[in-house]
């Protein structure tokens, strides 16, 4: 009995040892993605960044990328390290919370390229770590154009997560400015709930705006915002999503989401990989904006777009590209 156990154990160790060394024989670059908490198919940051990595790998002729889905924030460093140990050439990490560990690993591994989706890399930045950031104000501006053109009551609203988180404020400023520019008599109600995880508060906040006559609500508040969109659906008015096309990611609110102010995560990651292939190590921050297709609005859903809306959106994008339109003014 003991002998048999020993033989089995020896066999397992042998097989394990032989599998432990994964040969890096493939000629192309090895690309690894470490996701943020949650699941891979989240119809949000994880999924679109992952799709971008797949597109990027294809574009630069690299083998299919691999992914490690993070289940616990304590695993960030270990998950990144796993790719380092397996001699990966490019590691993409997703979300701001993993940024701290990404920076540390980038400093310790100068020969590996790191990209951080939605991570702002502060100076002094390592030459091999690039944050992929987005100009939220431009996306918010486009959402504002849509809102101003579909409102019947001339009152629209925006529910923000926290007033001290710059991306949130920028989204909403762009939204406000666009609406005012489209229609100077429009009233824009803005409320910062100061909480990203309170759907009930988001719902209450949106409900107040609706009671005051608002018929379009833009949410920039994570889970809180999901509550705001729910209020919009219940009241049979329109909601505008944020970051990704929430028509897909929030099936609950599917029937009232008109559009979403989008960060084009998939393009951003794909283009980052191309930049790395063409120009070598990438550092600092890469700003994704209208000039490089980094931001936009989702297709109009649920309603027939008013005549000329698409033209207005296209014109705004063109002006942003040309640098003649500042969404923060």
């Amino acid at each position, binding site marked *: 009995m003991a002998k048999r156990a020993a033989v089995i154990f020896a066999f*397992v160790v042998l097989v*394990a040892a032989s599998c432990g060394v994964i040969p890096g024989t493939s000629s192309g670059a090895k690309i690894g993605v470490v996701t943020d908490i949650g699941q891979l198919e989240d119809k949000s940051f994880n999924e679109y960044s992952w799709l971008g990595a797949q597109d990027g790998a294809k574009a630069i002729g690299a083998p299919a990328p691999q992914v*490690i889905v993070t*289940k*616990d924030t*304590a695993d960030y460093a*270990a998950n990144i390290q796993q790719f380092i140990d397996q001699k990966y050439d490019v590691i993409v990490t997703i979300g701001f919370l993993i*940024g701290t560990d990404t920076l540390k690993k980038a400093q310790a591994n100068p020969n590996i390229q790191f990209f951080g989706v939605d991570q702002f890399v502060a100076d002094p930045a390592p030459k091999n770590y690039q944050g992929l950031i987005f100009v939220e104000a431009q996306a918010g501006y486009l959402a504002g154009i849509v809102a101003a053109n579909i409102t019947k009551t001339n009152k629209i609203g925006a529910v923000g997560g926290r007033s001290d988180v710059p991306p949130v404020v920028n989204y909403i400023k762009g939204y406000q400015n666009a609406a005012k520019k489209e229609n100077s008599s429009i009233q824009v109600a803005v409320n910062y709930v100061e909480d990203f995880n309170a759907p009930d508060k988001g719902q209450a906040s949106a409900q107040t705006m609706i009671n005051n006559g608002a018929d379009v609500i833009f949410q920039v508040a994570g889970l809180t915002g999901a509550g705001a969109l729910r209020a919009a659906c219940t009241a049979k008015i329109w909601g505008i999503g944020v970051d990704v096309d929430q028509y897909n990611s929030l099936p609950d609110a599917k029937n009232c989401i008109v559009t979403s102010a989008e960060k084009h995560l998939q393009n951003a990651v794909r283009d980052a990989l191309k930049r790395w292939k063409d120009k070598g190590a990438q550092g600092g921050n890469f700003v994704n904006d209208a000039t490089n297709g980094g931001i936009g609005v989702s297709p109009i859903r649920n309603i027939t777009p008013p005549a000329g809306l698409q033209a207005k959106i296209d014109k705004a994008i063109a002006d942003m590209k040309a640098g003649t339109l500042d969404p923060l003014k």
Partner: protein
Amino acid sequence: MRQRIARRLSAAWRTASIPVLSTALALVVAGVVVIASSAFTGNGFQPLLPVGAYLQLFVGAFGSTTAIGNTLVAAAPLMLGGLAVGLGFKAGLFNIGVAGQFLAGAFAAAVVGASLATSTGIVAVPTAFVAGALAGAALGFIPGFLKARTGAHEVVTTIMLNNAIGFLLTWGVTDLVRAPGFSFPRTGDLGNSALPILLGRNLHIGVPIAFLAIFVIRWLLERTTVGFQIRTVGANPNAARYAGMSPLLVITFTMALSGLLAGMAGAVQMLGVIGFYASGISANVGFDSIAVALLGRSNPIGILFAALLFGAFRAGAPLMQITTSVPVEVIDIIEALVILFLAAELIVRRVFRIRAARAVPEEIATVTRTWGEQVAR
């Protein structure tokens, strides 16, 4: 001599057989899920995929010194958390509040640690660690005291406290102790308060502390009067009271000690791995600890092995994902199945043809006990 060893081994097997066989059965069933999910997602029918996946899981967990280090580091907070839950089971208490106590411990350790970042390590590390442990103990004391004083069921109070503490700490980190210079609310860097690395890349001093805790709690439960009181109260509070013990005191003490262990788990994870507190950090350890305690049959040595198993799953999962593209969720499935089979012992006994146990294990009894029962006053 030989006979004695044989007798002890067979006694150990009697306790361990169901957990071990439940795990084996869970691996088999999860393997079927792996094959099915691969077939249904267009990756084709690969009957050997589970074998490859488990092999990579094993290599990722034990295949190198680094891998073993990762396993131990992942297991350390689970050992402490498992002890926290297991200790509660011994006294007939179901502490679901380990998640909250874990976060409280992590938060306190992070705040104290960051404030001592530039002090010498010999002062900073123990102070931050003790702060975390005490925060957990304080949070564990509340439901214990409430139960002893008012009879409020600890399952209800600890679940509610989990939510309360989560929101309280989010407020704390955003408005009270937010460190400047970061783009999101978090505590400052730990500096010298980080747990010293003993071996390799990440094997920190929290690992031996967790091992030590296993043996201290085992000693406490089996060799001290306090331990005897805890077990007696767990077995029968009325009898304990009749024997001159104070169940109320024992319950309060046990919950506080359970919270202390959970707080230590938080401190170990914070000072050894995470490094800063931010709203959104995971408290999975809190819930995995319940599974660990159940799998370990509330026995400290059992908890040690259960924590190592769960730690190995955690440490091995990344390599499994990279090399076989099997999704990490299979680990969740395995862990859930283990608990399912433990609770539905009959299935395991049928499959492996084992005779029925004489009594229901105490932790299963605690978990499934109705809430109507009142502790004697």
